[in-house]
């Protein structure tokens, strides 16, 4: 009874110990060959296998394939020699999920000092491992960052220094950790560190702040800095993280853009001034032509008229004829001056853009032009004429010039045929004015739109040779094209396009 009591007492203690162990650890026992002979509930729970599935199997059942062959062999060699093995193992549960266990394997030896069985006691460290891995990933991120990432205390003492910081500032981590950040601030920017630390102290951050810092060699570098408070687990501000990025390239590009812009602006100002000067000169020239050339012309014309009026009766017929020629010459020169000034004014006048209904404009112009052509046999055909975007006054002048030409150069035809319309050519609206008049030789077509260029003798057809030059200038100012097709004695067709014409 006493002996019984003597055995019972330690056994009870052992059972209690085992119960406590089972509460804490994952326990398995294997035979010398590695066959599982015992598992506790925690083993089943973490591996998600039932006891029946585990007993008789070996640990390959939970092998994750994570560890190298050498690692596994080392484990077996160690315990087979009767020595305790300790290490961390990644296992795979039945459902494919992984878990980490901190493992101690204790071999129990028989009388020949050979392992009789192995007891493996494990602790689940999956969570710790995960946290560690996350931390390692973060650390790798920080190390591989090209940006300088610096940790510092609330007093500005450096605590962390990544390779990016090393590359940017030139200091090795070992020589700078424990030093103050102050040496990186240029003399005139020392106040910045006080401001930054004050903000951090209030829990605020400084974001993407472009500034200048000094390298180890004293050279300044343009950086964009973000400084944020670092909180401990209790939420207390314990330091600051500084991320600094080298922006010298960007700064250089910005300065280059600024320089180019300034240069461009200067050039525009200069060009505008030149243009204004040229315009003023042209205006002065026009004024001078208008004013000074007209005065002598007025005298020629006026006094020829006075002679005719006061002394005409005393002159022979021939003399009166010559005086008439003087007056006609003067009158013609007056017209030339007027047309030339009108032409010059075209380039200076600002271009207005409004929708113009050519289907209304053309008949109105035709009515005006043909009112004086009574007695002539005129046949006018009007085709489709769309709405277009143009300066109404200038476009009207184009129609007046083209249509009056058509009327003029068909004077010797009976009937005179004039066709006005538009057609679509290669997606573009082309207006045209066609007549069956005297036409012209296409060899001289290049002269057609020149100022004072005429393809007909003045006795045959009157004119100053400015009408088509005005047409061309107006069309060009609208971004369009103008051209003509003709044959001597078989009529002419004038075409023009305008930018922005609806189809």
């Amino acid at each position, binding site marked *: 009874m006493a002996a019984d009591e003597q055995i019972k007492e330690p056994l009870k203690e052992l059972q209690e110990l085992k119960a406590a162990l089972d509460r804490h650890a994952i326990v398995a026992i294997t035979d010398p060959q590695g066959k599982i002979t015992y598992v506790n509930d925690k083993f089943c729970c973490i591996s998600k296998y039932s006891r029946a599935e585990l007993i008789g199997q070996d640990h390959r059942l939970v092998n994750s394939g994570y560890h190298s062959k050498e690692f596994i062999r080392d484990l077996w060699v160690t315990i087979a020699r009767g020595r305790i093995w300790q290490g961390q193992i990644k296992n795979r549960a039945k459902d494919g999920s992984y878990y980490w266990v901190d493992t101690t394997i204790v071999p129990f030896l028989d009388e020949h000092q050979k392992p009789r069985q192995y007891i493996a006691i494990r602790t689940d460290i999956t969570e710790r491992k995960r946290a560690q891995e996350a931390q390692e990933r973060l650390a790798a991120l920080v190390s591989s960052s090209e940006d300088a990432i610096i940790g510092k205390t609330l007093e500005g003492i450096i605590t962390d220094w990544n390779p990016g910081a090393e590359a940017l500032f030139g200091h090795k981590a070992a020589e700078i950790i424990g030093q103050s950040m102050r040496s990186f601030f240029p003399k005139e920017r020392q106040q910045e560190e006080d401001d930054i630390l004050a903000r951090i102290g209030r829990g605020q951050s400084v974001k993407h702040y472009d500034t200048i810092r000094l390298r180890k060699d004293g050279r300044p570098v343009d950086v964009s800095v973000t400084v944020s408070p670092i909180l401990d687990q209790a939420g207390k501000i314990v330091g600051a993280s500084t991320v600094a990025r080298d922006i010298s390239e960007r700064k250089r590009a910005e300065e280059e853009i600024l320089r180019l812009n300034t240069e461009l602006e200067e050039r525009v100002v200069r060009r505008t001034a030149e243009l204004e000067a040229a315009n003023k000169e042209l*205006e002065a020239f*026009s*004024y001078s032509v*208008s*004013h000074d050339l*007209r*005065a*002598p*012309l*007025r*005298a020629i*014309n*006026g*006094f*020829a*008229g*006075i002679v005719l009026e006061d002394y005409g009766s005393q002159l022979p017929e021939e003399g009166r004829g010559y005086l008439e020629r003087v*007056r006609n010459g*003067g*009158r013609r020169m*007056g017209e030339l001056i*007027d047309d030339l*000034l009108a032409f010059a004014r075209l380039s200076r006048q600002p271009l207005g853009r409004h929708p113009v209904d050519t289907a209304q404009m053309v008949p109105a112009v035709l009515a005006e032009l043909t009112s004086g052509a009574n007695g002539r046999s005129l046949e006018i055909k009007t085709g489709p004429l769309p709405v277009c975007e143009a300066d109404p006054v200038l476009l009207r002048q184009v129609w007046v010039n083209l249509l009056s030409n058509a009327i003029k150069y068909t004077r010797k035809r009976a009937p005179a045929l004039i066709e006005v319309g538009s057609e679509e050519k290669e997606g573009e609206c082309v207006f045209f004015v066609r007549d069956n008049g005297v036409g012209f030789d296409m060899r001289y077509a290049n002269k057609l739109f020149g100022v004072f260029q005429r393809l007909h003798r003045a006795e045959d057809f009157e004119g100053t040779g400015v009408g088509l030059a005005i047409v061309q200038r107006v069309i060009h100012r609208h971004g369009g094209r103008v051209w003509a097709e003709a044959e001597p004695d078989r009529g002419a067709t004038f075409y023009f396009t305008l930018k922005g014409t609806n189809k």
Partner: protein
Amino acid sequence: MSEDNIEILLVEDSPDDLEMALRALRKAHLANRIQVARDGAEALDFIFGQGAHNGRKIENGPKVILLDLKLPKVDGLEVLRRVKTDERTKVIPVVVLTSSKEQPDVQQCYSLGVNSYIVKPVNFESFAAAVAELGMYWLLLNQPPKG
């Protein structure tokens, strides 16, 4: 002819234009009381009774001024400005007579208070008619307020 009975002051430097203007006025029977000034300074002396015209009374006319714009010494725009900014003379109708068709002139003349503006036509008939009509209009139809 007394300086105080002048009805038309003709300010013109070009002898040709002057001759034609005088002839047109003669033909329109308006030539009896014309004073001619050959530059802007002379015109101002006459209008304000100063210099060569010292003592002439401003209130006595002229009834109309025909004014060329391009003048030696003081130009037509300046003469116009002086006449139109002086309380004593601003009622005198001023007809600007010039060969210029350029816009700035027209606008400047109107902003200075010109009463009429005519571009001298190159051809004689219309020039004569324009001068005669203008003179008639301002002298006969448009009596300026007395005193």
